[in-house]
């Protein structure tokens, strides 16, 4: 545990220096609290009953519990509010896949600061925290959850078809996405745009392909400090599995591990569901994966 503690403490020092106050919430939440945040996001794998028959669940992330805390304990505090946490979250697994049911997450939530300014701050703290752990080769994939839906709408894709295409994007099935788009018979230019844009990833040049749908991403990218910008890979097809994201989304990659180390994004509608309508952004890193990547980098390992 000594190495894990060192990773966590180095991140805590960054959180502290940037004015993020650590919060604790119970591992058990009422099921209706999590599903109010996002029916799909909650995906609580472990449920139990209390003495009154209420359904309790083990939290699957910290964002929704913190949204609840903001509307209850910080109902009158003036924004922006800066929270950080180091806490366990629980997910369902498939047996014999080497997945953990319990994972240690370290993250921040920046409440009451809209994008792009708030997104930029969240990304800056993310990179500072990763730098503090000593991880060297990481990159941050940066996309926008509203980009592809806006593009579908701009090309006149009917709402019913949008859901199916977005599902293919989220499932990372680019063959299925291409077929679904081609099945709409939108004409060559629209088909080309809708099939190629989600595959664009790289520097600022990829933004040209998406037109006004990428304005949000353009604003964030233009405001990034140099130390963050050099880590960022713009990814127009980045889609995270949680439905509460409304704008910028990001994921952290390192060549020493085959899965993302963590991620986050903007969720401007979530807090309103708990009674305090504030824009927000946040991220979480999986500390165990971060540890694996650190060990891998020091060993000079490439997958």
């Amino acid at each position: 545990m000594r190495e894990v503690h060192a990773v966590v403490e180095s991140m805590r020092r960054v959180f502290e220096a940037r004015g993020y106050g650590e919060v604790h919430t119970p591992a058990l939440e009422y099921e209706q609290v999590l599903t109010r945040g996002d029916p799909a996001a909650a995906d609580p794998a472990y449920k139990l009953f209390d003495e009154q028959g209420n359904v309790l669940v083990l939290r699957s992330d910290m964002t929704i519990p913190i949204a609840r805390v903001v509307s209850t304990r910080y109902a009158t505090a003036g924004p922006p509010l800066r929270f950080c946490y180091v806490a366990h979250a629980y997910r369902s697994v498939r047996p014999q896949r080497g997945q953990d049911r319990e994972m240690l997450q370290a993250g921040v939530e920046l409440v009451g600061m809209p994008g792009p300014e708030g997104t930029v701050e969240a990304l800056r703290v993310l990179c500072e925290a990763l730098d503090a752990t000593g991880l060297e080769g990481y990159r941050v994939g940066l996309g926008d959850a509203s980009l592809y839906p806006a593009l579908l709408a701009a090309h006149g894709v009917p709402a019913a078809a949008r859901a199916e295409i977005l599902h293919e994007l989220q499932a990372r099935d680019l063959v299925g996405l291409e077929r679904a788009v081609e099945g709409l018979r939108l004409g060559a230019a629209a088909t080309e745009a809708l099939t190629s844009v989600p595959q664009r990833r790289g520097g600022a040049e990829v933004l040209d392909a998406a037109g006004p749908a990428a304005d949000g991403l353009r604003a964030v990218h233009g405001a990034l400090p140099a130390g963050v910008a050099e880590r960022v890979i713009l990814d127009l097809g980045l889609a995270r599995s949680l439905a509460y994201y409304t704008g910028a989304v990001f994921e952290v990659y390192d060549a020493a591990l085959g899965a993302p180390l963590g991620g986050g994004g903007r969720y401007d509608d979530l807090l309103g569901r708990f009674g305090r309508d504030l824009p927000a952004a946040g991220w979480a890193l999986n500390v165990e994966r971060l540890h694996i990547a650190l060990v891998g980098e020091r060993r000079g390992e490439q997958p």
Partner: protein
Amino acid sequence: MSGLNGLTLAVPRGALMGDTLALLDRLGVDTAEVRSNERRLLFREAGIVTMRPSDVATYVEAGAAEVGITGKDVLAEQPERAVYELLDLRFGPCVMVVATTAGDDRLAEALRRLGVMRVATKYPRIAARHFERTGRQAEIVEVKGSVELAPLTGLAEGIVDLTATGSTLRENGLVVREEILASTARLIANPVAHKLKAAAVDDLVARMRAALGGGDARGPEARDGDARARGAAR
């Protein structure tokens, strides 16, 4: 760029291997060593690892191979694997079907008289999803080997299995009752490699697309991976 652009490719042994190696030859990958050595699994100099098709998604998801080739049937059986499906390679066409012994449809009879039918398969998740979607109660019996045996011995009333030509089914006196999905070989990529080695991955996709002939990589079927448009109601 040339060859595999420094990427490690998981190559499926078995029915898809011949077409896979032929495609790699056209990309300028040296596959002579792979062809000449049946037992070796790892060909580091060529950037190739060989394995069972059903393991390809496992290795690629973990990043043990950055890209891989496997059948859509494998991907449909393991839909939660976090891998990118990049290209339909069009070879290895086959169909996932529901089959029973010829004559009266024993599955329909079991459903009518018993309320539940027993279906043997190597693809329990595809089978369960198919019967769930079509609103029929089925008890799925997972077997590892020749699934055609199950309806002949009374283990199950029917099977869900992959067929290319239908000859194994015919030889065992089985007939196709429904088609669930059409499958072809797919190029898949690890989600981290897809970002960190974007140029290498995109170039490989473009060269494979070109090697397959033209920019159109669509398979012969209008839309697979999806039973809605196909023979579910037959």
